[in-house]
């Protein structure tokens, strides 16, 4: 699914205001909790999904909607009043609640506009 674009160096950003360090992102070691969560992504950024720490029922639904490991995901907008996230995965647009997005680990954050 050749939609993942190589992150250009100047566009590569780190963990926003949540992460104190400004170093480029790295792949989390196996078994280690990912540094960044999908819920922390800002509008206009895209990232690669690294982990899905959700119950099996939700995992099946998310996978059927295209959210699986290694897949690029773009955040189009964040809902008002801590509302859901508007995401695009491949050719599918979906919304995901922040609580659920907080269970999805990501890396390779790129600003796509």
């Amino acid at each position, binding site marked *: 699914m050749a939609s993942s674009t190589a992150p250009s160096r100047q566009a590569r950003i780190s963990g926003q205001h949540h992460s104190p360090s400004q170093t480029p992102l790295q792949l989390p070691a196996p078994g280690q909790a990912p540094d960044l969560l999908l819920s922390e992504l800002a509008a206009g950024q895209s990232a690669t999904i690294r982990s899905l720490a959700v119950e099996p029922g939700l995992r099946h639904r998310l996978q059927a909607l295209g959210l699986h490991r290694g897949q690029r995901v773009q955040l189009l907008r964040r809902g008002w009043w801590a509302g859901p996230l508007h995401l695009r995965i491949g050719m599918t647009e979906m919304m995901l*609640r922040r609580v659920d997005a907080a269970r999805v680990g990501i890396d390779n954050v790129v600003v796509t506009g």
Partner: protein
Amino acid sequence: MTSSAACRPATIADMGMPNTGKSTLFNKLTGSHAHIGNWPGLTVDLMQASLELGGRSAQLIDLPGIYDLRGHSEDEAVVRRFLAATAIDLVVVILNASQLDRQLRLALQVQELGLPTVVLLNMADEAKRFGVTIDLPALCEHLGLPVLLVSAKYGRGLGEARQAIRKALDPGLSQPGSLDANGPLAGVPASSSLASTSAGPAGVGESLEQRLALVDGELPQRMAAILAATVQLPPQWRDRLTRRLDRVLLHPLLGLPLFFATMLLMFQGIYAIGVPIQGLLSGWLNQFGQGVLAPLLASWGLPAFVDGFLLEGLYQGVGTVSAFLPVIFLFFLAIGVVEDSGYLSRAAYLMDALMERLGLDGRSFVLCLMGFGCNVPAILGTRVMRSTGLRLLTMLVIPFSLCSARLNVFLFMAAAFFTPWHPLCQER
């Protein structure tokens, strides 16, 4: 052609994710003479209709839309129970061609059932418009299944689809060297079913579950490999208009007021057009009653109370209710347009934050809104919800939205009882 298997009507089930135009395709393929089938062990009604395949008769069963064969929603369980309890000759998998990048997953899962399968990629026109290119021969080869592009909406590719289904039903008919209709797990012979492989339906359900669980781990890699070889997505999202509209419609501040203004306009529009038609219709019905029915009844010389019952009771009662029909019709039309435009899913996004604080979600709000059209499909729509609590709560809330028929009755009653000159409204 004259084999014994050809005499028995074949049982074909269609399967697909929600919003793939599955029901439209079902109606187009069968000519929409569908009836509700009775299937053992299922608590839901499945639509079924006969499918004519050039001399071979078959029954096509429309299974509920599912995301995942191993999913945990009510519909997904229904499909599993159906597969376990019913002998199926062929599965037709219907996928949205423009979203093949994620929907192929279901085809791969169905493939593991080992049943003869035909894959139909619906909404082929939309995929082309969005710039999704699919290498069909390569996809056929990778899947080992016949794959066809169709467009249910425009009726394209339906003849070819019928032929492919016919061929897959009787592999002997196809030319030698053509695609094998069986999946890679061809241990199960063609036209057998999962039901015949084990003792009881419960055991079969488990074996199906186990078989799917076994391949679940390698599914993503296999899917990625097939997609990389066969499907090309557009580098840029082409639908600029949608993006620009979304910027306004999903605006954090303007979004909700805009939505409610649109709904207000819709209701106002329906009543602005519907009420005069309603008045005209009731006027005509009244004239017909007074001018034609009343003299007719009088000429029969029936007792006065029978006369009154027929004219003032039966005729006027039915007349009053049927005068509501224009408004109900307009309402269904309007809600159908709004639903198909995709605005309702955006409303779910806009309302989710508020509904979450009420223990509901954005979908509950949309279903309540659809309940203004008719409560029954709205309550049926809760089946996609995975959480039982949420589903039950939504079901209990939906009846509070007055459906278009009830709303008319309420307005009628309100106008009758609460007019300024009515005794109930007099202060003294």
